[in-house]
Structure formats: C-alpha cells, structure tokens
C-alpha cells in the first residue's frame, strides 16, 4: 500500500490515477499518524516551496515525513517533493526545507536568452549512479519536466540521474530509503509508469 501525502499539491490525483492504472494499491492521506505508519510514501508536489512548507507544517506533516524517513519507510518525492526534502530552497526568499537530505534547491539562471525558464517539456534523463527505482530505463528515455528550480545535494553521491539544459543538473536524488525525482514521472508516459512500478517494488 502506497500512501500519497495530501498537502494540496496539484498533481496528487494524477499520481493516484497512474497508480490505479498500474493496479498498485494506494491511498491519499493528510493524517500525520497515517503517514508515520505508512508502508510506502509518495511525496508529490506542484507549486511554490514557501506555501508548500506552510501547509506541511500546518498539518504536522513535516515531522511525520521526517519520522517515516527515520523509520526506513521507502519514500518517493516528485517535482517540488524533490526540492522540499533538501535543507533549503532559493524560492520565496530562501525557504527552509525538511532537511532530510543536505543541499539546496537552486534557480536556473542563464545568460543565453534562448533557454527559457521554466524548463518545460520532455528531456532525456541520464543515469549516473544506478538505483533500483531507475531500473528498466534505457539511455535517452525522456521524462516530462516543469520547473524553475532544481535539487542540488551537497554530496555528488546523492545524485542518481541528471539532465542537460544549459548545463548538466541533478534530476534524481536520494539517500537510503529516500528517492526523489524532479520530473513528473506520473505524466511521462510508459517510462514514467515504469519508474512508479519500480518504486512500488523497491526493497531496501
């Protein structure tokens, strides 16, 4: 059973529909006790870091999520979920994150005006450090992105995949039982669904 954290993130139902399609048992919950005891957790996200952190705190979900990480629960962060797990985000005038993984969410900045922000559309994901959740993917497989900030862990060993947009930046990060992707895997066609399947089967 996968529990999807409800903190008003816009892609919550899309994630659920993808899991339903795959026949993966799931529930949506905003109850911190349910999150603490969950078998597996998906931490989705769309929107701004500041208001997301506020909602997490209001619902006591920040502490619940940290606890479930410490208990060893497999957690998958998606999009904003891959940024909020870090120590901080440059968004909304430096927002403190959950600090599960050391690092920061940095804003794209380009001198080249042809590189538009947000980075929106399909881009290839390169595995730089094999991980079970990235299993069955082929070089050149593309995922769907919409974001202006990207996760930048302090240590390179926490980076599992990268993409290229002006420069090479991390798109899959993690540590122990936590794995997080910047792209919208729930909207990335067959390869995105494969990643969700991998997460559902991930044994530590």
């Amino acid at each position, binding site marked *: 059973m996968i529990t999807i954290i409800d903190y008003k993130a*816009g892609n919550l*139902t*899309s994630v659920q*529909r*993808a899991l*339903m*399609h795959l026949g993966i048992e799931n529930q949506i919950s905003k109850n911190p006790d349910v999150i603490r005891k969950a078998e597996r957790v998906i931490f989705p996200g*769309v*929107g*701004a870091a500041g208001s997301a952190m506020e909602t997490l705190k209001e619902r006591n979900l920040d502490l619940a999520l940290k606890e479930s990480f410490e208990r060893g629960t497999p957690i998958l962060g998606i999009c904003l979920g891959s940024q909020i797990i870090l120590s901080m985000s440059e968004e909304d005038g430096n927002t403190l994150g959950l600090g599960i993984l050391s690092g920061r969410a940095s804003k794209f900045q380009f001198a080249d*005006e042809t590189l*538009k*922000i*947000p*980075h*929106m*559309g*399909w*881009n*290839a994901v390169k595995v730089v450090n094999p991980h079970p959740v990235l299993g069955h993917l082929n070089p050149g497989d*593309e995922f*769907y992105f*919409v974001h202006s900030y990207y996760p930048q862990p302090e240590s390179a060993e926490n980076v599992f995949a990268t993409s*290229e*947009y002006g420069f090479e930046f991390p798109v899959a990060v993690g540590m122990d039982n936590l794995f997080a992707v910047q792209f*919208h895997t*729930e*909207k*990335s*066609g*067959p*390869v*995105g*669904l494969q990643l969700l399947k991998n997460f559902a089967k991930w044994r530590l």
Partner: protein
Amino acid sequence: MLSKRIISCLDVRDGKLAKSVKFVDTIDIGDPVVQAKKYYEEGLDELVFYDITASSDKRNIMLDVVNAVAEQVFIPFSVGGGLRTVEDCSRVLLAGAEKINVNSAAVRRPELIREAAEAFGSQAVVLSMDILRVDPAPGLESGYEIVIEGGRRRMGLDAIEWAKRGEELGAGELVINSIDADGTKEGYEITLTRMVSEVVSIPVIASGGGGTPEHLYDVLTKGKADAALVASMLHYDEYSIDEIKDYLIERGIKIRKV
C-alpha cells in the same frame, strides 16, 4: 536539451470529437477518449482539448471526458473552451488536466490570465490566440489582429502586443493559431509564429495549417516554435505520429521517441 513537442488538438462538441475547417463547418469524427488513448500509445507528447459545445447545460459532459482521459492517458494535456472564471479553470484541473487554455474570455477580460496564474501557477495557464492577417494600420502595426468567436469577430487588438501582454499577465505558454492557415494543410504561418517567438520568453506552440511533416520542420526551425499542433494530419490517418517524428529526427530536430 529539451525536445520539440508534437501536440495534437482535439475539438470536442457535446462529448464527441470534431475538427473544424476554417472554423465554419464541423463534422463529428469520433470519441475523444479513444482517440486520446490511441495518440498517447503511439507516442504523442501532449494533448489539447477544445470544448466547442454550444449550450452551457452540456458543459459538464466535458468534465467527464477530462476525467476519462486522465485515467488512461499519462502525458500532459490542457483543456480550453468556455473557461471564463478561475472556478471554471479549477474544475477542469481537478478533473485531471495539467493546464487550462484561455482564449476569447481572456481577450474580453485580461485579468483572467493573472487570476488563473496566481491560483494555479503560470505553468498551468496557456493563452490561445486566434489571429487573422490584416493590412497594417494604426494600432495594428504588425498586420496581425486578434479575433474571437471562432474568427467571426475582429477585436482591433494587435496580436504581437497581445502576446507580450499575455506573458506579462502570467501566461506560461502561447498557442499561435492562424485563422488564415487553419484547415488549409498548406503550412503554418511561419512569419507570425516567428514574430511572436522573438518577443516573448515563454514557449510558443504553432497551430493551424500543418499538412505535412515538412510543415512542422519549417515552423520548428524558421518559425522558432517550441511545439507544433497537428490535427487533421493525424485525425484522418494521413500520417502516423512515428512518420512525423522520424522525419523530424532525420532532419536533425530533437524529438522524443517512445
């Protein structure tokens, strides 16, 4: 590097698929959910649904279509047609769309763009523009004018100015739909698409006139579009998604292949 996107547009009336030719005659050509699923499986990058239902009491049929699409199609899609308020937009997004598409309602009340961008983020707001080629005149210096009501009503608004304004108000993407090219299959309006691409810094989607893969190549290169919308080329099985994509890849365009 981002791939250029191939997007298909499905016009939906009373829950059924229709394709307009020069916005006048429309004919029913099938079930939008079945069609959307087929395109998804064949490797399309994104979908747009325009609700062209005339009577407002049948509008909820569209929400059922959106729900059914979201259960089976795992690529981004947007929905437009008849969205006048943030509440209208919210219903469509909750039903499973990633983006909302505003057109006439935003021309009449530009604040709708700002309100939607504040409520859902710019990434969820697509501004569609129906554009007619006209003789340049004071206030219409570019020679391109915004029209509404399916092209019937000229608004005296310069298309290039409206594109810039749309971006300022918070639109995250622009659809540039040429009324002159729509349904002709003679190629996209390259000049217009390039003019808009050069003045905004958000993605530009070219629409209207695509008849061959070469037309897509032209608008993605000379027209500087980030994405191209295809309709009848696909709807009438003239080309497959693979044929279009293979052609573009062959000519050096970065395209996603499934």
